[in-house]
Every structure is written in C-alpha cells, then in structure tokens.
C-alpha cells in the first residue's frame, strides 16, 4: 500500500503538469483550429490551408523536405564520428573530450549558433575570404548566404549533436566481441560495420532521427536569419499567423497540419529505416523473409 502511494507521489506532479500545460494546450490548438468564420465547429481553416490555389501544401513539403535532408546530413556526420569514437578510440578521456566539445558548442544556444554563420558564409565571410585568398575564385560567391544551403547548414549544425549523442551511446553499448567475432569469421572492417555495427546501432540512429527532425520542422530562426528570400517554411508562417496576422485559429490549423505532416514523415522514415536496417543486417539466407524478428517467438 505504502509502495503504491509512493509510486503515485513520484509521478503525479509531472503527469499533472503534462496534462494541464501540454495535453490541454495541444487540445486547445486542435479546438481552435476548427473555429472558422462560420462559427464552431467548421473546417473553413483546413479548406483554406489545403484547398485549391493554396501554396501551403508546397510550404509544408518544403519544410518536411528540408528537415529530412537535415536528418540525412546529421546521419552522414554523426554515424561515422560516433563509430570512430565508440569503437576505434580506446581512451574514455578522448571520447569524453570530443563529446564535451560538441556539447559545449551545442549549449551555446541556437540563436547565437545561427547568427554565427553570417560571418562564415557572408559576402566577406570566412569561406569567400579564404577562397579568394587562395585564388580559387575571383568574385565572392553570393549564394552561400541567404538561401536554402545556408539554412540547411545551420539547421544541421543546430541539431546533429542529438544524433551524435544517441548514436554514440547505442554504439558504445555494442559488445566489442561481436566485432571481434565478425573479423574472426572473415569479415573486413567495412563488412563488420555494415553487417554488425549498423544494424545493432539502428535504434540509436532512429532515436537520433526523431530528435533531429522534431526541432528542425519547427524552427524559425535559421530561415529568418540566413534564409533571405528563399522559400518560406511552415514554422515561420505559424509564427506570423500568431504575431502579425493575429489569426489564432489559422495559426492553430497550420500547427495541427504541421504536426500531422511531421508524423506522417516520421512514419515513412521509420518504414524506410527499418527496411534499410534489415537489408544491411540480413545476410540473405533466412529460412523465410522476416522470420527472424521477434514475431517468430513460439
């Protein structure tokens, strides 16, 4: 009895807060999105957002596409680095130092991190100055700043540490003897990576993908500070509905649509990752397709 009482005591404060200031606000957004000009409930806002002639679906696709490329870039950076740190570097001190360095730059905060890129990608920024100094280019490249590439570079910069940390932990948990056994049986380092390390680290990559994707679809800083006139993204439109147009129901509708689209994208990502993980892990001699999953438990 006492145990149960203490169990509830530990969980209740947070669960209450989640209920009041998380579930309730989301429900509020949902309700508000249904209040249109014709009263409540109405689908007016959704008709405007998704109806013919609206550019919102394009904005939404652009947002999701940008976020997915950020996820892919994060994987491309974090997976090799995490593998190197967790499985090739022996010293825990070196591992901690590299992770701490990334963590420090991460914790400086997204605003400062984003602004910083202006001095690198700008007309007289680091990249142009160095390239001109080396004589590679005569005129500064203008397209570096204020465009999609700059936005993606900064978004990746702001989000990839999530991927690095989760994948590092996942790889750190893989028993070194699996790698030794793979080598022992005749697999080279690359084969061991694709056949053993990657499938076993897949849950970590997957967690990292969500942690990168979620903040990326909702950030307004990078497009605003570095995006220039490149296509608008969904988060900026939401912010503008709340603060400039003062159309809260429309803002709520856009928010709900973004959540749903993000959910669909994550689901699609999950299916693709699962298929890829199976492809990379499987060695093609299973008794029947998919027979070795947890489902074959008798």
């Amino acid at each position, binding site marked *: 009895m006492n145990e149960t009482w203490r169990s509830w005591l530990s969980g209740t404060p947070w669960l209450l807060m989640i209920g009041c200031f998380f579930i309730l606000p989301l429900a509020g957004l949902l309700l508000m999105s249904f209040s249109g000009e014709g009263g409540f409930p109405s689908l007016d806002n959704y008709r405007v957002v998704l109806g013919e002639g609206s550019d919102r679906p394009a904005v939404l696709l652009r947002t999701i596409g940008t976020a997915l490329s950020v996820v892919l870039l994060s994987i491309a950076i974090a997976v090799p680095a995490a593998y190197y740190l967790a499985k090739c570097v022996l010293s825990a001190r070196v591992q901690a130092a590299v992770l701490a360095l990334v963590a420090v730059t991460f914790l400086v905060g997204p605003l400062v991190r984003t602004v910083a890129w202006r001095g690198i990608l700008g007309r007289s920024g680091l990249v142009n100055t160095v390239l001109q100094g080396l004589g590679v280019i005569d005129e500064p490249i203008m397209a570096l700043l204020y465009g999609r590439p700059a936005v993606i570079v900064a978004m990746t910069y702001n989000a990839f540490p999530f991927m690095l940390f989760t994948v590092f932990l996942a790889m750190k948990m893989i*028993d070194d*003897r*699996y790698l*030794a*056994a*793979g*080598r*022992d*049986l*005749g*697999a*080279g*380092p690359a*084969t061991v990576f694709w*056949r*053993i390390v990657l*499938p*076993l680290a897949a849950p970590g990559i997957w967690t990292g993908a969500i942690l990168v994707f979620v903040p990326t679809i909702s950030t307004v800083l990078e497009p605003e500070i570095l995006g220039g006139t490149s296509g608008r993204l969904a988060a900026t439109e939401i912010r503008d509905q709340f603060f400039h147009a003062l159309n809260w129901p429309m803002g709520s509708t856009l928010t709900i649509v973004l959540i749903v689209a993000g959910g669909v994208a994550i689901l699609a990502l999950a299916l693709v990752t699962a298929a890829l993980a199976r492809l990379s*892990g*499987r*060695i*093609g*001699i*299973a*008794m*029947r397709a998919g*027979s*070795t999953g*947890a489902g*074959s*438990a*008798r």
Partner: protein
Amino acid sequence: MTVSPLRKGHALEIDKVSKAYGHFLAVDDVSLAVEPGEIVAILGPSGSGKTALLGMVGGRIAADGGDIRIGGNSVMGLPPEKIDAATVFQDYALFPHLSVLENVGFGLRVRGVAKAEARKRALEMLAIVGLEALADRNIAQLSGGQRQRVATARALAVHPGILLLDEPLGALDRQIRGRLQEELARLLRRLNVTALLVTHDQEEAFTMADRIAVMQGGKLEQYGPPAELYRWPATEFVATFLGNGTIVEGRRAGGTDDLPLFEVAGAFVVARSRVAVGASARLLVRPEHVEVGPAGSQPAPTWRDARLAGVVNTGGTSRLTLEIAGTTLEALSLGGFDLVPGQTVDCTLAAEAAVVL
C-alpha cells in the same frame, strides 16, 4: 565431413611469442606446436596469459615478438579476417540481430560464398551439432548449451585450419558442463578438427585435450599429455595446480642411478631423479598413492607410528591428514573405516609414487 585435410607438418606453431602491456609481461617467450587433428588445452589460472596467447593466434592482439604459423604460414601482422583460424568466444558473442542459421552462415557469406550454397552448408553444420530444428530461432531463445553449440557450428562452418576455443563451456552450469565437454571433444575428433582450447578448469582440459599446456605468469610451465602432466609434473606449480598432493622435503640418501633412494620423514622411498647423493630435494606425494591402515595392519609400511591429525569424510572417500616425524602428508582413503583423529596408523607409499620436482 572432414574439416582438416591431411597436412604435412604442424597445424599450429607458436614460436617464442611474447606480449607486454607496459611493464607487465602477459606472455613471456612461449613456444608450442599443435599437430593436425590434435586438441590442445592451454590451462592456467586467470592472469596466466592464456587468453592473450589465444588472442594473438586469432590476430586480435598484436604479438611483440616471435612468430605464429598456421599450416606453415606466418600470421604475424595479419588482420583477424585473413587468418585461417576461427574462434568460439567466451560467452559466444553470437550476433543478437541474426537468427541461428544466419549466425552459422555469416562467415561463409562474408567470404563471398553464394547465398544458396552458404545456406546449405550452414544447415549441414547445424545438423552436425544437432540443432537443425532451431535454424529459424533468435539467439535470445536459446539455452546456454544450445548457444555453445551454435557458436561451435559458426566457427566450424568456415573450415578453419585451427579452431580456437576461449573458455567454451565456462558460462554453463556445472551439471551440464561435464556432459558437453565430452560431446564437444567427440565432435571435434569425429570431424578431425585441430583445436586450441583455453580454460582455467582442470577437469575440462583433462576431459577434452590430447595435450595440455600449463601456463602461469605468462610462462609455459609444461606441455604434454594429461596423464604425463599429472604423473610427472615438471614444476611445483604444475604439481599443485593439477590435482591434490603434498610437497615434502627429502634428501638423496643413496641407491643406484636406476633406483635412487630418498630419505623422506625418516623413511626411504624410491623416486626417479638425477640428484646427487646428499643433495636435498622436494618431492610430490599424491594422496591416492598413500595407503593408510590401523597400526599393525600393514606388513611392511613405509612409515609406522604416523599420527592421524585429521579426517574429513567427503562421501565415498575420506581425506586424511597425517603427521610423520614433523612432516605433514595428505592421503586419500576409499570408504569410511573407523579412523579417528589422534590415532596412530601405518602408511604405505606406492612404489615409485613420489616425484622429485
């Protein structure tokens, strides 16, 4: 199926191999050879360097000096995947994301064997270890003994020149370990596999191996067939690490070269040795070689008036502690006859039972 084709020369030669970690010499100038089809056990306590030695043969640890040859070819500096050896790892290291069949077929697939062929050979290998019915299972669904057999099948599937086994049964319960030791040894002999086995378990080494290499402190103490090691240990460490026994002080008292006589606790015993007359020596006496009876019961005992200091009955046998002229001796007695501590007894040492170390 025969795994090792007939080969000339040694299957494995370890030639003056050393390995240091900082100032700690893990393996110190060890040499030993394994013949084709032979099962050799490296036996030693933890920290004796036996696992480091196995790691060097498998290419997982770089040796500091010496040479290691498998089938006559040096493997020094080769990465593990290029070495014609396969390992059954301690706790097996079976891939948790692959099925039983895929684990067994892994080595074949990564060596470029076609899917159908790899599948067929993996199934054959599973049939040999009696697990073809479990081909489809996850590793997590297997018992300890089954995992051991999958690990063995996985290593054997690539037809290694030598099979390396790192404490292969160490993770199992005592009850099934004994049965599996015999099973595994039978399997390896049937397939004519050359195997190098690392263990700290004397019983495992004796049950499975044709020859045993005893290691301690990074050094090879003695290498030979189990019976020889037990009967003629070369060092005090081997004498006490393998089986029980008492080491007693003695002195060469005389006798001929064929029949050297030693004085031990006031009696004369015969023991093979080249020690000069008058020199002192240390002799091993195994408890089962000492026969004990009530005073006056033996016609020509080695020692009379031995005092029985302790009796511990362990079921079928009794462990006796004897005190003879200031020397303590252990003896083993079948059955529990009416010996009580403190009584005086006769002791007879079996002919040529004492070993000079």
